């Protein structure tokens, strides 16, 4: 027994109990409560990376880059609404609450979305004046908690989104820990300052699709049938959920895959519940096609969308638009290597931070702390997000032109091949180099 370090060549890690699992068991044993965190699923999942766009060659001809037009506009809410949403790009900003995000972040997002001609979305906590002022097109969420729900805000928005579920936690309610419940947030939510806010997972006045149909009628009556009504579901039983949302009268369905982000959720929920975005898109499109409602009820897909290729693949599978949450925050500066000492104070590093739930966001995005918030200048943040959205749009157009498409919505499954058997099965496109689609 020399006390010298062992020869590491002979240390054999357990596949069942690798170091992170051991650390989590130790933490659970110390604290007696599940781990709550922000961000989205970190585990490996089949993603759009497992699909490739085929591009054009002899059998298809491409469009000239920078010279021939490739349109990006999309209209959401053509089924019943008198005023559908006209978006310049098929990339929208997902619902994130004022509370989870600070006022500067909401303002920056609104400014960037407006500059790009697209929409942004409120969240659990209602509509803040900063957000409405900054956002030309604002989607107003009606959530189970009904925090801050105000009929005047309903009438002042551009579309309504009834939130049934969220990809990060399908079946779970919202959560905002006490450290983020400041006086202003508490006032907007009719809650005491500093308490852990546990949102309901079901709506208080309806249960099931038949009730939802009547609820949507009420929302339409209140807004005189002017506005599109979306229904947002967390990807789980996607085919059934999309069909029922259509039956309930939705103008658009938002399907949020399990990679979708959150500001505070149990880690076990984030990593182990739901369906990845990749198969969810295909299942949603199939449900719409079976009902003869594809392109009549628009499909918006979210959950792990990162760049123009992800958008192109989602559209090729049949989505009408995508929605960004986490990626938009990263563009604002989330996980940027600034204020590194504050990352360390949280026990993390830039690139690994998922500490939105603490309210101590080092870059001033997911915080209500007045000092930290000053680290995000709304105009600068808006500029970065606008640059990012511009880049994504250019990437999308580049790929669509290469596939010979004069409009990005002309992308189709025939433009895709899969590089894994799993992705081929999930997306129902051929495995690259074959004509084989698993299950057919």
């Amino acid at each position, binding site marked *: 027994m020399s006390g010298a370090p062992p020869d590491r060549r002979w240390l054999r890690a357990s596949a069942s109990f690798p170091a992170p699992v051991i650390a989590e068991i130790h933490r659970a044993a110390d604290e*007696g409560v599940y781990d709550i965190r922000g961000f989205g699923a970190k585990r490996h999942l089949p993603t759009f990376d497992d699909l490739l766009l085929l591009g054009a060659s002899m059998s298809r001809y491409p469009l000239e880059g920078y010279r021939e037009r490739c349109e990006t506009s999309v209209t959401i809410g053509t089924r019943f609404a008198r005023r559908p949403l006209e978006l310049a790009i098929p990339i929208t900003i997902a619902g994130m609450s004022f509370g989870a995000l600070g006022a500067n972040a909401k303002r920056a997002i609104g400014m960037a979305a407006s500059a790009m001609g697209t929409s942004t979305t409120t969240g659990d906590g209602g509509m803040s004046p900063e957000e409405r002022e900054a956002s030309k097109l604002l989607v107003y969420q009606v959530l189970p*908690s009904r925090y801050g*729900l*105000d*009929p005047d805000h309903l009438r002042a928005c551009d579309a309504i989104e009834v939130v049934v579920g969220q990809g990060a936690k399908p079946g779970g309610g919202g959560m905002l820990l006490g450290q983020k419940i400041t006086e202003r947030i508490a006032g907007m939510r009719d809650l005491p300052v500093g308490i852990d806010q546990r949102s309901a997972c079901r709506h208080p*006045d*309806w249960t099931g699709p038949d009730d939802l149909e*009547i609820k949507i009628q009420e929302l339409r*009556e209140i807004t*005189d049938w002017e506005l599109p009504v979306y229904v947002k579901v967390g990807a789980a039983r996607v085919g059934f959920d999309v069909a029922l949302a259509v039956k309930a009268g939705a103008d658009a369905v938002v399907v949020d895959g399990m990679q979708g982000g959150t500001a505070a959720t149990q880690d076990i929920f984030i990593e182990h519940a739901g369906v990845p975005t990749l198969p969810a898109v295909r299942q949603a499109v199939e449900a719409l096609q079976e009902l003869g409602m594809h392109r009549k009820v628009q499909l918006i897909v979210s959950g792990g969308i990162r760049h123009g290729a992800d958008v192109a693949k989602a559209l090729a599978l049949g989505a009408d638009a995508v929605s960004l949450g986490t990626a938009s925050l990263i563009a604002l500066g989330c996980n940027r290597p600034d204020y590194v000492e504050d990352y360390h104070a949280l026990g993390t590093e830039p690139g690994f931070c998922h500490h939105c739930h603490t309210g101590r966001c080092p870059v001033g995005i997911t915080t209500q702390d007045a000092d930290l918030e000053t680290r995000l200048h709304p105009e600068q943040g808006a500029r970065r997000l606008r640059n990012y959205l511009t880049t994504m749009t250019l990437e999308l157009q580049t790929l669509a032109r290469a596939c010979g498409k004069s409009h990005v919505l002309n992308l189709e499954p025939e433009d895709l091949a899969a590089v894994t058997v799993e992705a081929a099965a999930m997306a129902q496109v051929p495995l690259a180099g074959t004509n084989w689609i698993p299950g057919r």
Partner: protein
Amino acid sequence: MSNLPEPVDFDLAGGDRRSLNRSLHALAGDGAGARWNIRNPGGRHALCVGMAAEAELAIHGHVGYYCAGMNRSANIVIHGNAGPGVAENMMSGSVRVKGNASQSAGASGRGGLLVIEGNASARCGISMKGIDIVVAGSVGHMSAFMAQAGHLVVCGEAGADLGDSIYEAVLYVRGPVASLGADCVEKEMTDAHRERVGGLLAAAGVEADPGSFRRYGSARRLYNFNVDRADEY
């Protein structure tokens, strides 16, 4: 000679919900004092929703889901029974149900007064956020679930799990309570509380002795997670 405007008669047997609600929304701004009699509602859903005028509406008959939903300013009387979600998310004004109300009456209401002269079913006052609700009869199970603010006065009995996960709403019940939900406890009834109940009963036009009520509210044990109280979740 009365200065009140002549009441408008709207017969839903010969008209539709859309034209009714559109006409009522047009009162916003200069419709204060308007009086409407709405006849033959026939259990239709979403009648008189999204009101934004100080109008006086009387609905003669039974209504379906969400009648008077998100009401602001209007005073609405339902001469019949009401379906689920009557006066849901009300902001101000008043809604009176002369008969019984189905589940989720006053759900997430943020202000105003909801009076139910009969009984209310399950989840009465669920997620209430500042509304005052007076029920002359009894309420069903899970009433005042996650109730955040406002008052619920029940002159009869309360079903199981009253006030489960309650925040700062205050519940007054005269009759037996089947059971209290998580974190809901009985609290002392002081003179100030009796005065408050008396005021709410008077506003509702319901006769009952304020001294015969018991008060329930949050123990505030679940406001911040405590591992030693995990069995209460």
